[in-house]
């Protein structure tokens, strides 16, 4: 199996790479090249940092078109992590208003409650969706590591699993071949490794 992590110059990919290798897949590449991404069995879209900057890097390098072809038309399994999840949505209100890849009908907005500390940092429990492939062999209310100031919400059924921090928000979604997690599975100990294993072998 070959896993390709999308390289758009942002995100700490070292721990994602090492967790995939730890799970027995040694063929892991980091690339923005069409041929290499096309040759992947599965693709991971990582990301840390600014939404606007990420989208501009993605558009500049035509990664939006490549991902559209591979994930939407060819239905190759794709996993978005943290900012990578948010980029799959319609738009984000971070730094004004920025359009996303719009593969999934969901929106990204800031945590607004005054009673909570922002960013949302640490392990939090996820209420798992019973239909989820990602959560196979993972108990309900398991802990995963989050670190973010913006959250995803949607009025549609996108097979979401939920988390609560001041309010409910989407911790993961799964629509056909498109998967995403707001938390970092690669930093979430056994729970995260199991989830990545599910993406590698069950998606």
């Amino acid at each position: 199996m070959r896993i390709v992590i999308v390289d758009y110059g942002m995100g700490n990919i070292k721990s994602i790479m090492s967790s995939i290798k730890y799970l027995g897949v040694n063929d892991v590449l980091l690339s923005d090249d069409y041929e290499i991404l096309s040759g992947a069995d599965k693709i991971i879209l990582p990301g840390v940092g600014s939404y606007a900057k990420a989208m501009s890097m993605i558009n500049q390098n035509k990664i939006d078109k490549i991902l559209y072809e591979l994930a939407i038309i060819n239905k190759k399994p794709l996993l978005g992590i943290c900012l990578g999840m948010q980029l799959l949505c319609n738009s984000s209100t971070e730094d004004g208003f920025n359009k996303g890849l719009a593969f999934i009908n969901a929106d990204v907005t800031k945590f607004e409650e005054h009673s909570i500390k922002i960013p949302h940092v640490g392990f939090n429990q996820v209420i798992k969706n019973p239909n989820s492939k990602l959560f196979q062999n993972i108990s309900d209310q398991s802990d995963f590591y989050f670190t973010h100031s913006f959250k995803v919400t949607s009025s549609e059924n996108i097979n979401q699993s939920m988390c609560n921090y001041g309010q409910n928000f989407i911790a993961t979604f799964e629509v056909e071949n498109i998967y995403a997690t707001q938390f970092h599975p690669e930093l979430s100990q056994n729970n995260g490794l199991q989830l990545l294993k599910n993406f590698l072998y069950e998606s």
Partner: protein
Amino acid sequence: MLRKRIIFSLIYSDGFFNQSRNFRLQKVGNEKWLEHNYQFSKIAHSLDELILIDATRINKDILKFSDTISKIVENVFIPICAGGGVKSIDDAELLFNSGADKILLNSSLFENPNLVLELIKIYGSQSIVGSIDYKSKGDRFLVFVNDGSTEIKMDLYSYIEYVQTLGIGEIYLNSIDNDGTGFGYDFNTIDKVIDSINVPLIIAGGAGNESHLLEGLKLEKVNAVATANLFNFIGEGLPLARKKMINLGINLAKW
């Protein structure tokens, strides 16, 4: 429910890991010693996060430090925060590429706020932890930078406000007076400043045993407790402490 965190801080200096007492460093062992006594790939199950601090006093070598980071974090699947001597975007990038998920900034908060703003713009607030070292003097609280060697003009209250206006994502609040004493955290000061902190708060300095960690975790507005005590939590020390706290009903993640 968002969990509280137990964090282990490693004080690195020039190739060695150190026990720090009031910011005076005592060499304990090198990477091999650390690997022998703290197998992070195993005991990471008892930790929520690892912080690696380069406290080398003269001529910090960030390349050597980042090489050490990449060795320690191998097969450790928890968040890693690293810092000490980050003076440029390239320095931060090097630490990220070596396995850090967050960057700890101390002196540059005061000396180079533009760098801090730039790093936040690139990596986001949640990737930047602001480290504050302070001492109390009478009824005043003094802030120090450069590994505790340089007193700055702002007092602790205004400094806490200032670092939050920069947009850092978390505060690592470290008492120089209590550092390495094993007498417990400086709750006197923590109580005074806690309400002015609107980002996640990590308290550090003084934890000598699990009851100190427990006392810190019980405070509503303390999000994480850190210990850098290499002697007191050796071997099974951390796993046992965590287990005990979970049994006492402390809100910690379970794996």
